[in-house]
Every structure is written in C-alpha cells, then in structure tokens.
C-alpha cells in the first residue's frame, strides 16, 4: 500500500517553530531598538533627504562652502523632531516635500509609479536568473556534435578514470 507522506512538505516540530518565532521576535526587537532615539532619527531622516542647494548631496553630507540650504534644513529637521508627539517620520518628510518639492527625498517613495523604480531591478534579476537557468538547461540538452567514424567519447567510469589520470599528472 502506497503512502502519500512522501509528497507532503515536512512540518517543523513545535520546538523548531518556537525557536524560529523567538528568533524573529529578537530580530524585530534589535531592528527597532533605538528607532525612537532623536539622534538616531535625525541621522536617519537627514540621510533620507537631499540638500536643495544644487550640490547633489545627501542633506547631512553637504558641506558646500557657504551653503544656505543645508543649515536651514537641518534646523528645520531638528525643530520637527523636537516637537515629538504625533510628528512621525513620514509626516516630517511630507512637510519637507511640501516645502521643497518631491526632489528633496533622496530615493523614490514606495508609492504609485515610484514603486516601479524599486521593483524593476529585482524583476530584471529574477528574469535574468530564469533566463540563465533556461540557457544552462538548453546547453545541457544540446545534442553532441557528430563524430567521425571510429571515434567514441568516454562516458561514466571510463571518463572518471581519464580525469583521475589527468589530475594525477598535473596534480592540480
């Protein structure tokens, strides 16, 4: 009598699942640790915006001599963070967008058409991998070129024996 167990995916034991849940929780705690720290938020938000003076640099990295924009923007960012309360990161960024326009954000947002910017590279990677796998398979399945009469290609153990000899001779 045949069983169907072989076609099912193995289910992790309860202990393994608990370990995985604990690991995920620990990871989440570490990832979000310090997220509310004003200094960390200042550094994070300051690196998510561009200086608007035309130097083309991230806000906190602009050291443009005599830059009128970056000092003002940094003060505004600090003031926004000092407000605290409901003034979350997204609202702060939104405020900067309203004041300076959408180009103040250093990377496309994950909304609307801007999502395409993020999706496309990974889509190309996925398609590329699929294409490469297809190519490799087609190469593997390609018929051998026709051989002249009397010539045979060694296969299996015979081929392994040749390889062993070759490795022994070159020792590499």
């Amino acid at each position, binding site marked *: 009598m045949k069983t169907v167990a072989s076609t099912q995916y193995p289910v992790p034991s309860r202990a393994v699942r608990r370990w995985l849940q604990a690991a995920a929780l620990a990871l989440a705690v570490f990832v979000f640790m310090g997220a509310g720290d004003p200094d960390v938020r200042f550094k994070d938000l300051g690196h998510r915006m561009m200086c608007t003076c035309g130097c083309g640099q991230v806000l906190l990295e602009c050291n443009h001599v005599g830059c009128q924009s970056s000092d003002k923007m940094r003060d505004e960012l600090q003031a926004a963070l000092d407000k605290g309360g409901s003034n979350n990161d997204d609202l702060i960024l939104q405020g900067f967008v309203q004041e300076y326009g959408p180009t103040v954000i250093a990377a496309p947002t994950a909304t609307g058409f801007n999502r395409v910017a993020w999706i496309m590279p990974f889509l190309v990677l996925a398609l590329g991998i699929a294409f490469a796998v297809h190519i490799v398979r087609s190469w593997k399945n390609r018929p051998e070129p026709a051989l002249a009469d009397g010539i045979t290609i060694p296969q299996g153990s015979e081929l392994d024996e040749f390889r062993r000899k070759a490795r022994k001779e070159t*020792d590499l």
Partner: protein
Amino acid sequence: MLALGLSAYCFLAGFVALFRRDAASARLGETARRAGIATFAAVLLAGIVLVVAAFNDDFSIAYIFHHSNRDLPAAYKFAVLWSGQEGSLLFWSLLLAGYGFVLRLRYKTDQRLFAYASVIIASVQVFFLLILNFAAHPFAVMQGALPADGTGLNPLLQYPEMVIHPPMLYLGYVGFTVPFAFALGALIMKYPGEKWIQITRRWTMVTWCFLTVGVFLGAHWAYAVLGWGGYWGWDPVENASLMPWLTGTAFLHSVMMQEKRGMLKVWNMSLIFATFLLSMLGTFLTRSGVISSVHAFAQSSIGTWFLVFIGLTLAVCTFFLIANRSHLKSEHKLESLVSRESSFLFNNLLLLVVCFTILWGTFFPILSEFVQGHKVTVGPPFFNRVAIPVALLLLLLTAVGPLLAWRKTSVESLKRNFLFPAIGSLAVGGMMILFGVRPWEDPSYFYATMAAILSALVIFTVISEFVRGGRVIAGKTQQNLLSAMIHLCHRNTRRYGGYIVHFGVALVIIGILGTPFNKEVEKEMGFGDKINIGPYTLVCQSFTQDDNPNYANEWAIINVFRGGKQITTMYPERRFYKASQQPQTLPRIYPSFREDLFLVTDVYLVYEGKNETTGRPIIKAHLNPLVPWIWIGLIIMVFGTIVALVPNAAAVQVAATTPVRAPAQVGAGG
C-alpha cells in the same frame, strides 16, 4: 578640418576598398590606412596648438579665456586641454586617433580584419571631428576687445589628480572603441575562429585597466577635494563611468568561454557593443547636462549629436547581430551546472543586473518626469539598497568561481578546495561579532559583516589557489614555496594575474565596508580648543591666512593626539580663487597605518568656514575606518592586470629525479 577630411577619406576609401576585391581597391585601402595615420598627426597638432595657447595665455581663443588665467600653475595649464567641453572632445579625438595610429601600424597581423577595424574607428573619428568642427570648436575666437586675463580654471579641477584622472578615464572610454571595432568587423566579415579575440585581448585588458584607474582616481579626487568625507556619491556622471566598467568586466570573463569552449558568441558581441555604447553614453551624460550632476561644469547642446550617434551605432550593431547570427552559434554543450562555464554565466548576469540598476536609477528621474510630470531624486539610499545585495552575490561568485573547473567539477574537489577558505571567512565574521559589530542591529552592519565574510572568502580562495599550485611546482622543481608561486604565476599569467585582481577587489570591498562605522564631529575651534573623536584628540594650535597670485587661503593648524601622544599635525584649508572668484575647501587626510596597520583609519579634517562674529574656524572632523584599503586594492588590481598582460613562460622543466616522463603542464586551466 584637415583631420576631418583625412578621417572621412579613411572611412570612405577604406569602405569602398573592403567591398571591391581588385588590385586598384588594394591600393585604395592602403591610401585609406595612410590617411588614418595622417589623421593622428593632424589631431595631435591641434592638441599641441591648444596647449601652447594655454601656456602663452592666448585669451583671443575663447576656450583658453574660459578655462585658464595667467597665474594658473603650469601643470593645470597643460590640463586645460581636458578641463572644458571643447578641449575634452579634442582630447577624446586625439586618443582615438592615437589608438587608430597604433592599430594601423600593426595591420600586417591580419590585413583584412585590421582594415575593417580601421574603417569602423574612422567612422567614430569622423563623428568626433564633426562635433569639433561644427558644434564645439576649441579654437573659436573671442569677440570684441581682447581680455587682459582669463576667468580661470574651475577650483574643483585645481588638484594634482585632475591632471591624470580625466586622461585615464578617457583612455578607458576611448580604448573600448578598439575591441568594439574588431568585434563589429569580425561580425560583418564573418571572421572564422576566435583569433579576433586573441588580437584584442591585450587591448581590452589595457583599456579596462585604464578605466579602472580612471574610476578610482575619480573616487579619490571626490574624497580629497569635495570635502564631504565620502568617495562615491552615486552621481550620474560617476555612474556613467561605472557602467562600461561593469560590462567590460563581464566581457573579460565571458570572452574566456568563447576562447576555450566556443560558447557565448552572441553574448560577447553584445557585451562589447554595450560597453562601447555605454562609454559614449558616459561622454553624453558628462557633456550634455541632460541629468543634473556635480560634474555639471561642461554642459552644452551637443547631446543631440551623441543621441543620434548612439542610436545609429545601436541600429548597425543590432542589424549585423541579427543578419549574421548563424555565424555565432556555440560549438560545445555544457556538461555540468557545477562548472566554470555556469559560474561565468551567473557572474555576467549579476554584473549586468548591477549595470542595469545603475542605468535605471540614473535615468529614472527623466522617466518619472515623463510619466508623473515631476522629477524624483534617485540618490545613494536607492543605489545602496538595490545594488549592494546583488554586489554581495557577485562577491560570492568571485570567491567560488576560481574553485570550479572547466566542463565539470566534482563535489569532492569543491569540498576539498572550499574547506579552508570557508572556515577562514566564517572566523572573520565571528571575530567581527566578538569585537562588537552587531549585524542584526542595523542593515548597514549586516551588509558590512556579509561583505567582510565574502571578501575574506575571496582572499582565502586566492591564497589557497596560489599555495596549492605553488606546492605542486615546489615539489617538482625543488624551489621554496614563494619562488614556486612566482614561477606558477609566470606559467599562467592570465589566470594568476586574474586572481591578483580578485584579491585587489576584495581589499576594495574591505575599504568600503568601513562606511557604517564612520564618525564625524563639527566644532568651532579657538586656540587650544579640542575635539574628541574615537581614540583621537584634535587640538587647534592656531589658524591663519595666506595669499598668492592664484588664490588667497585660510587654514587651521591642528595637532592630532592619540593616547596622549602627538602623532601628526594637519592643515585643513579653504581657498578663494581670484580669477574665478570661487571658494574651495581642501580637506587634509591622515591614514593611521603606523598606529593601526590592518584596521587603518583616515583622520579627515575639513575647514568648513569661519564664524564671522568670532573669526574662528569651523572644523569638521571625520574618522573613516578602512578607507585606505580601497586605494591599496586599486594598486593591487593594476598590478594583477599587468601580471595578466605578461606572456606566459615556457613549461616547467621537471627535475630528472621526478618519475614523470613528460614536462608537466601546470596551471594551464585559467
């Protein structure tokens, strides 16, 4: 104009000679070749005249007026040639003519293939000379009264590296025209075999080396001049130089599959075409101003010319790729998924995905404006988040690839060769955690840890390959291990030179992975004021100012202490260039090799400006760990390329006592 006439003749006469096979057309072809050689002389003369005009302060020439002044130091007057739009296009043209000159002198290697390549190079030459004559004339004359002095060179360009960075980059950009010309020529004439690859192999490697040096010098220039403490800002023009480098690197790898196995022929053609087109795109981005960039010191309307040329080239390449595709069929099949061939395929894939990501990110603002009606910024956060994971995968392949054999690799040999590097790299990761790096706390720490582990894997792989091969040679020749490894390297320079380049790449990555651990402090400093940053104490000894005919400057004298002991004095500076009326900071950098060696850190000081009320300087101090390894990595990459260019030595002569009948061919698998 003379050069344009000569190169146009070279193109047209050469073209006609290629398609008519009689004695008269052979003579016509020879005149075309000589016209190509004469083109070099004419363009060289034009370049010399422009440089002499700069040295003579001939401000009747508009280009000299806009890019030089009387008090500009001599080295920068020489660099005036490539400091502006028209001059740099002339320089492009000169380098192309120089490459063409060498190629046309060596035509006897394969006359017909060289004739095709010569005609294709002449067509590119005609394009640049057309622009120089009709859109961006370097000898345009000033209108009105003759000015007493020029407006000076852009202060950002007044730095020693600017004398060598653009020529290196241009040698790389322009150099890819040569393998492109040979590839297209071979495709058009359905050239039998892979000889064209062997002919162009050295051209391609030299060109790739120039481009590598150019890209890294650009990064170093940004680090040492722009004063923001970083070396790569994902600026569109920086990206433009990286894209052909990525496709060129992919080509250097995949072309080996064509040489050794007769595979990937269409792919290699496409890669070299893409590399050339991306080089042109880089020049277009630098010169057109279509995308805003910190390199926006040379913008004009020549973008249309470039777009037309790029479109035309793309059409020609695509046409011949399709028309002659039957000529590019693979000769062998793949035997195993675990083989050098498949690793090259995936290495190519990842390089191209990184290239696509950069291209996509660079042009997305234009696409966004077209679709949404407004531009968005695609800055460092985007590139770091998207390109870094793919680059880490690429690093993994760099480590694993050399361990795979051509055709098929047994799992046992992979395990045997992989064990030592894998243990070593995991130990590096463990040590990082032991020393306080918490990869789970921040994505940047996670990437840094992964990059460290994979870089170590690459380094240990390279070392194990050298040691393993060296031991074999040592056993057969009774040399010590070091001599045996040098001998081994000389036996197969291409393979082991490539490994040295991989070693350099790993060091570059190690230099980059220090970024998340950077520190910075900004402070107004009076006499005796201190900044504490990391293990360093910076004490302001004094601040002062100076003046010379070219610029006036302010600078601070900062003593650097570590563990209570003074280790150096640094002089961060801010200049004000008189001719251009522009200010410029000049950071000072101290790499702590003497104190740290492996964990070397740059102490990086910037004179931000002066508090007008107190008159005291504002100093920004950065600690940038591991950055010096980037520049050391570059030197090793260049050394590896030079090794790879050296011809192989003769076979190892096995000692008489060794019980082997024939001389062993060691290290011939690369």
